[in-house]
């Protein structure tokens, strides 16, 4: 099983004045084509540093990152940028407030020369429809959109370059619970439809359980455990993983029963 993306002995050291901070320490793992790999860990565990290295924001201090077998250079080529895209945590910041939704979505098309110049507006409209937004949103400013709608635009932008791998950096943690569920559903649908690979960075283990195929657990820059979602939840090997799982708020049986009853009512109404 060869990876779409392979990290081999990757380390990242940041120098802050005299101090050296080892944010990521000798990490190796593969991201398999078509999977959703969750990267979990507390803040400061190095998961964002891993994401930034995958995206080519900065190169690893040691080790290599390979894409379909080719080692990626420190300065990314455009075709690799096109293939690996990002959805950020906060859509309020990730969309430029001074540019229209359409302009933000057009940028990847222009940069990578996708489609005919004259047909790019149509493409933008199709992208918006694909994420469940009306096409006339392209003329709006991000300020006129709700948090969930903004995040849908950010997802559309990540897909615009016909990417293969999308790094999802806490894509739902800034949204309220109901919107969160809908965005997760959209992500799952898009993955099926487009055959995408996800690297899903989160600290929310209930989200992980719903969407991830495999889970990588990070602590203090080290990869503590990597396995299928079922295996990690059923039989966590590492003490840190057990602590993470134990920290998830427990849902009581009464609440489960209540939820099932409410959902039935909902289904009946629909």
């Amino acid at each position, binding site marked *: 099983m060869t990876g779409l993306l392979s990290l081999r002995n990757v380390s990242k050291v940041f120098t802050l004045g005299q101090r050296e901070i080892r944010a990521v320490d000798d990490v190796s793992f593969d991201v398999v084509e078509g999977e959703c790999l969750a990267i979990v860990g507390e803040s400061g565990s190095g998961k964002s540093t891993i994401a930034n290295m995958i995206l080519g924001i900065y190169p690893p201090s040691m080790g290599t990152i390979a894409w379909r077998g080719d080692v990626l250079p420190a300065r990314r080529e455009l075709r690799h940028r096109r293939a690996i895209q990002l959805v950020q945590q906060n859509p309020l910041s990730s969309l430029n407030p001074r540019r229209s939704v359409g302009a933000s979505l057009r*940028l*990847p098309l222009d940069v990578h020369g996708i489609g005919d110049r004259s047909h790019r507006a149509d493409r933008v409209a199709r992208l918006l429809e694909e994420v469940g937004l009306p096409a006339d949103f392209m003329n709006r400013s991000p300020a006129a959109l709700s948090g969930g709608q903004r995040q849908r635009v950010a997802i559309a932008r990540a897909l615009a370059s016909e990417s293969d791998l999308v790094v999802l950096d806490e894509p739902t943690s800034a949204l309220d619970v109901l919107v969160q569920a809908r965005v997760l559903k959209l992500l799952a649908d898009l993955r099926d439809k487009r055959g995408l690979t996800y690297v899903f960075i989160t600290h929310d283990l209930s989200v992980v359980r719903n969407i991830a195929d495999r889970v990588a657990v990070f602590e203090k820059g080290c990869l503590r455990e990597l396995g299928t979602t079922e295996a990690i939840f059923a039989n966590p090997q590492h003490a840190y993983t057990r602590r993470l799982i134990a920290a998830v708020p427990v849902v009581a049986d009464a609440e489960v029963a209540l939820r099932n009853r409410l959902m039935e009512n909902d289904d009946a109404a629909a």
Partner: protein
Amino acid sequence: MKRAAYILVRNPLSLTGVILIALVVFGALFADLIAPFPEHRGAVVDFANFNKPPEWPYLFGTDLVGRDLFSRILYAYRISLLLGVVVLAIAVPIGVTIGLVAGYVGGWVEYVLMRITDVFLSIPPLVLAMSMMGLLEPTLTNGMLAVTAMWWPWYTRLVYNLTRSEKEEGYVLAAEVIGASRAHTIFREILPNCVPSIVTKMTLDLGFVILIASSLSFLGLGVQPPTPDLGSMVADGAKYLPDSWWLTVFPGLAILVAVFGFNLLGDALRDILGVDQ
């Protein structure tokens, strides 16, 4: 637009600024039609009516060679505004570009550009302009050059600081991940977010440029006679205070109105564009 109208109506000072500047700009643009003696902007002498206090038809009185002060002030506004607009039209693009590049690129580029800026900022503005004017011929063009040289670094500082904070926003990361060029990220993503602050500062500065230019010509380093200039009119009249008070007071008030008006207008724009202080 609605918001702009609301802010203007709610704040009488903002409204005052708009009205003052509208009057100044209108007077300057249509000086040929409004001025009772348009020919008095040049080297005209009328000794029959020299040094007259304000009386019809000389609204603000006449100067020592019998020229109508009101007409000359209108034409002086024209020169002042032209100077302000030209200075900012040159200084702002230079200052803004340097600030954007220094703030975004960082590293040694930032170091070199910002140290050069600091050198210019460390010299008191009027001293820099005075020494330049001392070296060069005192003409209108050189006056603009001198004021421009002292003005761009302030825009570099402003935009540099804005860029450093905008750089941390997610939309800049998004553009980088997409693979957009540096030029795109700087000028199409970051710059639009700096525009409200730049426009506000430009409005405030129009008043200050007029003030500095007047100071230079007050010292005899700016626009040369017979071209009417508010600063040299104040300087010429100062010798005859307090008897011929109109020679100094009206040009002085004209400077005050322009500077004050642009300040109020700048504050109003800041409210309308929602710029953080």
